[in-house]
């Protein structure tokens, strides 16, 4: 479980996060949604410890992130996996070397054992046999999946993903969503995904946090999100004209059904 208590984060005079409280449970796919510039990425990077909050506390189970010693923080880091928006795969390394990197750094396993683990992770993301390719030789969707394989190589307890669907076609995006969701359930890990993709929200959102102008505006699950009375959330969800038309049609359909009844 990850818990944020009154998180504030400022850059100079600009306050990006203005007091955010929430908790993310394990075994659930937790989504942070919001429009661009709402503070989602800053929030994610603060949660993962890349940014220090200006004030407030972040708890990983019973460990307060800001009060951990260097040794304890290092120990915690090995339980964290992250998929970056731009994948952050090392260009000069092959896919296998990229995925193996955390093992090379921290594990005393033999090369054969590490290779086995890499192959297992590659199979898990449905990409067997691409060990010796370089990131530049594979597609964007495949790079995302390699990023996921690297994020899960150390069997993390907490998994973070920043905009995992950005720049992907809808079919590949669904595949990435399903993959993240199934990995979460299989390993009972706490997954936090930053997204503004509504199809992800409706597919895998066990717990959804809507962030608006640096504040937590709404929290709920995928069955509650469409019927929420929060006006800002409704404007965000139905910002696209297509969805607006769809909603209008659904309402008209409900009305006609009601009259017929």
């Amino acid at each position, binding site marked *: 479980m990850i818990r944020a208590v009154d998180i504030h984060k400022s850059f100079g005079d600009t306050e990006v996060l203005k007091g955010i409280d929430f908790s993310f449970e394990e075994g659930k796919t937790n989504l942070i949604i919001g429009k661009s510039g709402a503070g989602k990425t800053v929030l994610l990077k603060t949660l*993962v410890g890349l940014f220090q909050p200006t004030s407030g506390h972040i708890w990983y189970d019973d460990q307060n992130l800001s009060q951990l010693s260097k040794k304890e923080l290092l120990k915690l880091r090995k339980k*964290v996996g992250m998929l970056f928006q731009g994948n952050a795969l090392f260009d000069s390394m092959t896919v296998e070397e990229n995925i193996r990197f955390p093992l090379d*750094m921290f594990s005393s396993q033999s090369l054969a054992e590490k290779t086995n683990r890499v192959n297992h992770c590659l199979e898990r993301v449905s990409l067997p046999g691409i060990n010796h390719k370089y990131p530049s030789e594979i597609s964007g969707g495949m790079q995302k999946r390699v990023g996921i394989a690297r994020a899960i190589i150390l069997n993390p307890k907490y998994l973070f993903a920043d905009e995992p669907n950005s720049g992907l076609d809808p079919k590949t995006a669904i595949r990435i969503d399903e993959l993240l969701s199934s990995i979460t359930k299989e390993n009972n890990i706490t997954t936090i995904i930053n997204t503004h993709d509504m199809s992800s929200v409706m597919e895998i959102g066990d717990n959804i946090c809507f962030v608006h102008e640096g504040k937590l505006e709404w929290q709920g699950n995928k069955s509650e999100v469409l019927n929420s009375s929060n006006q800002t959330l409704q404007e965000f969800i139905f910002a696209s004209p297509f969805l607006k038309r769809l909603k209008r049609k659904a309402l008209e359909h409900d009305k006609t059904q009601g009259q017929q009844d």
Partner: protein
Amino acid sequence: MLYHIGRYIMWHRMIFRRPENYRMYYKEVIRQMYDIGIGSLMIIFVVNVFIGAVTAVQFTYQLSGTFIPNYYIGYIVRDMAIIELAVTFTSIILSGKVGSNMASEIGGMRQKEHIDAMEIMGVNTSSYLVLPKLIAALIVIPLLVSIAAIVSIFGGYIATIYSGSFSHEEFIQGLRSFFNPFNVKMMYVKAFVFAYILTSIACYQGYFVKGGSVELGHASTRAVVFGIIVILIADYVIAVLLTG
């Protein structure tokens, strides 16, 4: 300015932390040694041949018509190369070639979130990205400086002998005259100090880069400019300390 000096000094505490995995660092040191050493050999060779040649030709011209014997040219070329020209020119060239390369490499990793990815894995990125470069530079740059000094003297020899200014015997006599081994020590002291300066300043500029490709370009330029300025200041300080 003071902020950067302070941060640069404080940052060294992170660089010299105990490595997570010595084998990974070793691999990185070997890669960097190859990049700095083999990658710079040709330019060091060419530049130093001409520096030696120009020194010899220039002094032959300046000393012609004086009572100073011809063999002094060999002595001047040798000591100029060993004490000053080989080490300073090599370090300045490397500051431009290797320094800008290191700043761009690390800065590019910062921008592509590679450094963030490593941090999240628990890697001490200051140490992993900088320490192997420092070690490689401290091993390879003194070797390059040794080659540069020899090549520079060779350049002086070729320029004077083949232009017919004076004989092979006179040049060799000059090379063997008034030799002070302390000058070689001074060359290596300078080589180690300059290697450290150019590498650490370049890595600092790359590591703390913020913004996009324009800022990365500026960081790369700053790595070269500050590297050269600090090398020249250090050159003066070492000269005063060791010869004063």
